[in-house]
């Protein structure tokens, strides 16, 4: 798709969408948001960026194949459940730590996994429809 307006505006849309997607991802911890919505926002930003530029630009931007992202996301989500098992607790029972009052948990790893899988899945799909 050869559009100067899209080409120019997508340069701004991409970083804003990425930043916003990370915000939504982290916000999802206790408020509406999370990996799924965050992943969709990121994928939308990347889609806007690659629509005027074509498939090869998408793959250059990502560095890895979107299929790899799906797998990596699933692997992260899978791993986030393992600490529970190692502590003889149910799978996916999430573990928490509070270094200096900052709540950190394996839930975040799970959510990042969801985020990556969603980005990967949407972009895998998109890649089939992009022009070269």
């Amino acid at each position, binding site marked *: 798709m050869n559009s100067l307006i899209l080409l120019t505006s997508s340069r701004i849309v991409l970083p804003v969408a990425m930043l916003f997607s990370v915000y939504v991802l982290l916000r999802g911890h206790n408020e509406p948001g999370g990996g799924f919505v965050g992943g969709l926002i990121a994928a939308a930003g990347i889609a806007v960026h690659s629509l005027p530029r074509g498939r090869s630009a998408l793959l250059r931007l990502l560095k890895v*194949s979107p*299929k*790899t992202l*799906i*797998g*990596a996301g*699933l*692997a992260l989500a*899978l791993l986030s*459940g393992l600490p*529970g*098992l190692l502590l*003889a*607790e*149910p*799978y*996916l*029972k*999430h573990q928490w730590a509070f270094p200096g009052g900052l709540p950190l948990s394996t839930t975040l790893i799970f959510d990042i996994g969801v985020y990556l899988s969603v980005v*990967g899945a949407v972009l895998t799909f998109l890649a089939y429809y992009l022009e070269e």
Partner: protein
Amino acid sequence: MNAHLLLSLPIIWPLLGVALCCMLWSRPRAQRITSLVVSAGLLLSSLALLAATWDGTVLATQFGGWAAPFGISFVGDMLSAAMVVITGLMAVAVGIYGLAGDAEAREAAFYHPLYQGLLLGVTGAFLTGDIFNLYVWFEVMLISSFGLLALGGTREQLDAGVKYVTLNLVATTLFLICVAFLYGLTGSLNMADLARILPTIDNQGLVTTIAVLFLVAFGSKAAVFPLFFWLPASYHTASAPIVAIFAALLTKVGVYAILRSFTLIFDLSLGFTAPVIGIVAALTMVTGVLGAAAHFDVRKILSFHIISQIGYMLLGIAVATPLAIGGAILYVIHHIIVKANLFLLAGVINRAGGSFELKEVGGLYKTLPWLGVLFLVPALSLAGLPPLSGFWSKFVVVKASLDAGHALLAATALAVGVLTLYSMLKIWNEAFWKAAPAASTAATERWLADTGTRRAMLTPIIILAAITMTIGVVAEPFIAFSLRAGEQLLDKSAYVEAVLGPGPQRSAEWQP
């Protein structure tokens, strides 16, 4: 190993398979190794689960650590452990078989991640103790199987895939609607919790209505009469390993869901559902076997036999005595092994004989006598001849129906057995016995020249045939196990207690 680990590992292995195979998408060789390793892991961890539940223990865990009935329970009793073991066995057997033939073409089309995704859906469905979660696993299974079915991307496959996915989506949507009704009625989705609440509901007529709706939804998945039409419309288009894993597992998840929900959640003694299931069982047996008699494509014959055999399992469920339920379980186990093996053999017939179409194949017994013997083991077992596994499973189911006074159902089962033998002999006569057409001889020579393919395809067939023989010759422990698993199903107290703990629960007093 503790219960959490035992129940999580059969799900973690295939999930790991999906994740790794996606990450290794551009390296087919690495995917093959990963796929085989995680399948072996699935088999081993499911054997550990079976060992832990062997004495009748029911294991339960709550994923995420949220207590039942709010969290999602995963439960392993004898039936689900046995089903997971058989899934692991199929994963390995069909996994090895899938290395041969046109493997490169399949692998380029995302075969391994989808294969593992299918296994993930199946093991999840067998282990979950939550009815909504069961729906989720059905969806995982449906999406993966659609991908596998349409893998080749030919016109024929896409046509079959669209039919398959549309008809199955209708069934899963109905399932979802049933779940919503059930939740509206009881306020719970946990199967153990439902087992406690449903008998206390005043409006038992509504419970029966929901039960019958569930029967339609699960029956469609299990391909029973008159909801089976998606199966013969789609199965014959997929390649041999894919259709073998479908035939082994997909419909049996539907049977498992019927078996589980109609023993744990709903009561078969309500007086309405059991006779309905009985009639459906008889019609399923008969239509399936008649459909098979009319066809000359090996895959179509075998597809119709899946339907026919599902009828026997339903027969056991309909009779609903401990012996009959045990017989149904034995039948499922026997059937998965035999049916998968027959489809694997169909792939070999296609390769060594040049076609799936029986008219174009012939003379295989002359050139490949051992293949003929390997075919006869599952074929005669399917028909129910002693001393093979099919004889014992048919024997238990038929005896149970005679004991319960269902002479007509028993007679139908026996007559269908004879017709099954007819179909199997038809394949034998055409593919193995009659003189070989020229094209078929050429294919046989190619087959004999390709040692690698032969090994990969025949090894799982030999293993599965050996298991069929073992169940046939040393039937006692298998029958005893199935009967105990059946008794465990009918006495739901152990299941409920394993999930919810002893004593009255919150939900028992919950009023809508």
